C-alpha cells in the first residue's frame, strides 16, 4: 500500500504555471500543510501551491509516494522535474517539460503531454497514453545534454525532433512522428511503429532509429548497408524485413536507420546498391 496525494486545479489556468515542485522527491516527508505552501510561478507571479491546486491525502499508509494529478494540467510545466523515485499519475493532459531531467521513478499520463516530455532524462520511465508534443527527450534549447537513459513510451503520435541529441535510453512511439526524428542523436534507440514525415536521423552520429511505417524519403547523406529480416528492440523482436541505412555521413556518423521494406516500396531503388 502507499501514500496517494491527489492534486486538482482550482480553476482553468490562462498563463503557464511553473510547478517543478510537483514531484515525489519534494513532497516526500512533508505534511499536507507544508506541501500546500510550496512555491510555484503563475506567469510572473509567485504563488503558493494551494492557491492554484486543491490538495487531498487519499491514502496514508507506509510505502511509495504517488501523486495523482486530476484535471487539465496542460498549462502546468515541469511536473516531476528532476524526480528520482515515486510515481506521478496524470488523469488528464500534462504541460511542457514533463519529467525534465528525471533520474528515476515513473510518470503515467492518461491523456496527452506537451513538448519536451522527458527532456534531458537520466533514468526512470514515462508513459503517455495519448499523444505528445515536439522535442520528446530533447535537452533545453541550446544545451546538448540530451536524454541519457530511461524509457519513454507514447501510445499516440509525437511531434518533431523526437530524441533530439539523445545519448542513450529508449523512446517508443506507437503512433506517427513528424520531421527530424533522432536529429543529432549520439546513442540510444528510437522505435516508431507509425509513419515518419521525413528527415529521419539528420546529423546522427550513432544509435538506432526504427521506422515501421512509411517515410517519404531517406536523407541523401545516408547510405544503404543491408536488408535485415528483423530488429530487436528492448528484448522484443520486431519482424521486418528492414532496409538498414548508415549515417549521417555528413557528420561522420555511424548511426543505424531501419526502415520497413514492406511499407516503403518506393525505396526499393536502393536495393541496386547492395550488389
Amino acid at each position, binding site marked *: 500500500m502507499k501514500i496517494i496525494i491527489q492534486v486538482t486545479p482550482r480553476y482553468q489556468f490562462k498563463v503557464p504555471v511553473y510547478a517543478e515542485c510537483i514531484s515525489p522527491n519534494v513532497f516526500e516527508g512533508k505534511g499536507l500543510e507544508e506541501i500546500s505552501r510550496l512555491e510555484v510561478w503563475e506567469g*510572473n507571479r*509567485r504563488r503558493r501551491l494551494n492557491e492554484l491546486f486543491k490538495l487531498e491525502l487519499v491514502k496514508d499508509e507506509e510505502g511509495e509516494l504517488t501523486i495523482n494529478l486530476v484535471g487539465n494540467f496542460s498549462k502546468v510545466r515541469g511536473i516531476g522535474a528532476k524526480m528520482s523515485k515515486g510515481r506521478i499519475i496524470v488523469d488528464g493532459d500534462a504541460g511542457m517539460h514533463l519529467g525534465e531531467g528525471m533520474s528515476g521513478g515513473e510518470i503515467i499520463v492518461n491523456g496527452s503531454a506537451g513538448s519536451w516530455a522527458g527532456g534531458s532524462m537520466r533514468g526512470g520511465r514515462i508513459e503517455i497514453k495519448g499523444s505528445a508534443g515536439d522535442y520528446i527527450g530533447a535537452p*533545453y*534549447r*541550446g544545451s546538448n545534454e540530451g536524454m541519457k537513459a530511461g524509457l519513454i513510451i507514447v501510445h499516440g503520435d509525437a511531434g518533431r525532433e523526437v530524441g533530439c541529441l539523445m545519448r542513450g535510453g529508449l523512446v517508443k512511439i506507437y503512433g506517427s512522428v513528424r520531421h527530424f526524428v533522432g536529429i543529432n542523436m549520439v546513442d540510444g534507440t528510437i522505435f516508431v511503429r507509425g509513419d515518419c514525415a521525413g528527415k529521419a536521423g539528420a546529423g546522427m552520429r550513432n544509435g538506432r532509429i526504427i521506422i515501421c511505417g512509411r517515410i517519404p524519403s531517406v536523407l541523401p547523406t545516408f547510405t544503404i548497408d543491408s536488408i535485415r529480416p528483423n530488429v530487436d528492440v528492448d528484448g522484443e523482436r520486431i519482424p521486418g524485413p528492414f532496409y538498414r541505412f548508415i549515417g549521417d555521413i555528413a557528420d561522420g556518423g555511424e548511426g543505424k536507420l531501419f526502415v520497413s521494406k514492406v511499407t516503403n516500396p518506393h525505396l526499393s531503388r536502393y536495393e541496386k546498391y547492395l550488389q
Partner: protein
Amino acid sequence: MSLLIKNGFVYDPVNGIDGEVMDIAVEGGRIVEKVDEREAHIIDASGMIVMPGGIDIHTHIAGAEVNSGRLLRPEDHVYDFEPKTAITRSGVGHSIPSTFTTGYRYARMGYTFVCNPSMPPLEARHTHEELEDTPIVDKATFPLLGDWWFVLEYLRDGLIKECAEHVAWMIMATKGYAIKIVNPGGLEAWGFGRNVRDLDDQVPYFNVTPREIIRGLCIVNKILSLPHTIHVHTNRLGQPGNYITTIKTMDCVKDLATSDKPVIHITHCQFSAFKGDSWANMKSGAEDIAKYVNSHSHATLDMGQIIFTDTTTMTADGPWQYTLYELSGNKWVNHDVEVETSSGIVPFRYRRKSYVHATMWSIGLELALLINDPWKIYLTTDHPNGGPFTSYPKIISWLMSRRAREKTLEKINRKARARSLLPSIDRELTFYEIAILTRAGQAKALGLKSKGHLGVGADADIAIYNINPRLVDPARDYKTVRRAFSNAAYTIKGGKIVAKMGEIINVPDGRTYWINFNMDCDVFSQRDLADLRRKFREYWTVEYENYIIPESYLKVSAPITVRVGV
C-alpha cells in the same frame, strides 16, 4: 549623508594598514578625516573586515561579443534567474549574466570597479550602452589596438609619433582607458586563415612582427603617459609550450622600463603558461614564469584562474577560438570585425577528471602562490573564460588555505595531481595579501589614484565582510571565508550603502572612466585628418563622423585628463 564605519579590522595595503581596528569616516562620497558622530549614519563593523571596494582588472561583461554569447546560450540562463525586486530588475545568467544582474552580483561581492577589456573600437557604442546598463560599479573599457590596420601601417613605416597621435585619437573617440593587445598580428593573419607562430613571425601583407607591435605600442603607451600599461593577451595562447612565448613577450619590452614602474601587463596568464609540446605531455610552466616575474619589476600579471564548471569562452582571439571549437566540437561563433580585430565564442566545460583542465586549474594557483610579490599578480578568472566572476570567493579560499587546495586536489585527475606543484607549496595568503590581489594591486596597475585604498580623499568605495580575523583561521575555516566573501556584509559605493548581506538596497549609476588627452599640439594636422577620413571611407562600413562617441553619450562620464607633449 555621512557615514562612520566603526571598529572594523581595516586592511588597506596602499597605506600599509594591516588589520588595525579603526574607524573610517565618509562624507560627500569620499573618505574624510572625521565626521560628526551625532549626524552620521553609524555602521558597527566590530568583528568584521573592512577593505577598499574590489577591483576587477579583466572581466568581459559588456559589448557585442558578450551579447552574442548571451544569445548563444539559453541553457546557461535557464536555471539561474533573479526575479525583480522593488529596486532591482530581473535578470538571468550563470556565466554570462545580463547587464543589470552583472552589476548587482559584483556589488554583492563587494566589488566597485570593473574593467571590460577587449572592446573592438567599432563596437564601442554598443559596449558603452551595455556598461551604462551595468549599475552600481564604476567601469573602464580597453579598445583593441594590436591588430588595427592604422597601427600596423604606422609601425611598419616606423612612424611612432604619428602612431601615438592616432592611438590618442582612438582612445578618445571610443572613450577607452588603456591599450589592449590580443594575439598581436595573429588576428590580422586570421583574416588570411593563418596565425602567427611566434614573436618574430611576419604578419601577412603588413610585414611587421608581433614583437614590433608590442614594442611599438609600449613606446606609444609611454609617450601618451597612460595610467595603465599595455594590456597584453599573448601570442599562442592556449597552446602547449606557450610559456616561452609569454616570457619572451615580457622580455621584449624589458629595456623600455626606466623606473620600477611596470610597462606591460600579461592578462589571464594561466592560459599562457603551458609547458610541453602536445596535450598529452602538457604541464605547468608557472614555475618558469614566476621565476622571471620574481626577478624583474617591469611586468604585472593576472591569474585567469579556471573553475570546474560550465562556462562560456569568449575572446578577440579568433584563431584560438576556432581551435577550441575543433577541440570541443561545441557550438561556436567566429567573427571578423572589419579592419580592427576578430572574435570568437565557444561554450566550454572544465572537468576535474580531465588531465588538461586539472593542470590548468593548478597552473593558475601556482602562479599566484609562486610569485612572491602580491603587487605583481591579481585575482581574475578572465570572466567568463575561466569561470564566472561569482567564483572569486572560491579562489580566495584556495589561496588562503592549503587544506582547501588539498580538498580539491583529491578530486582531480590523478596524473594531473601527481604532476601538480601545489602539494609542494605551503604558502597561504593573508587577508592583507588578498586585499592587494583583489583591490590595491589592481588599482595601482590601473593607475587609479582615488581607488583601491581608504586614505583620506579616496573615493568611498568600501567593502565590509562579516569575518573576524582574530577568531577565524582562514587556513582551517576556508568555508567561512568563502561565505563571507560571497556576500559582503556591506558594500558602500560613492558613500552610499548599495548592498547589505547580499541584498541590493540602493542602485546608483556607476561612472565610466576614460582618458581625455590634453595635447600640446593638435591631435591631427589637416593632412592627417584628410587621410583618416579617406581611409574611413575606403576601409569601414561606418563613416568617420559616426564613429566618434561624444562625451554626452556616457551616462556618468569620469574623464581622466592626461597631459602629453607629442
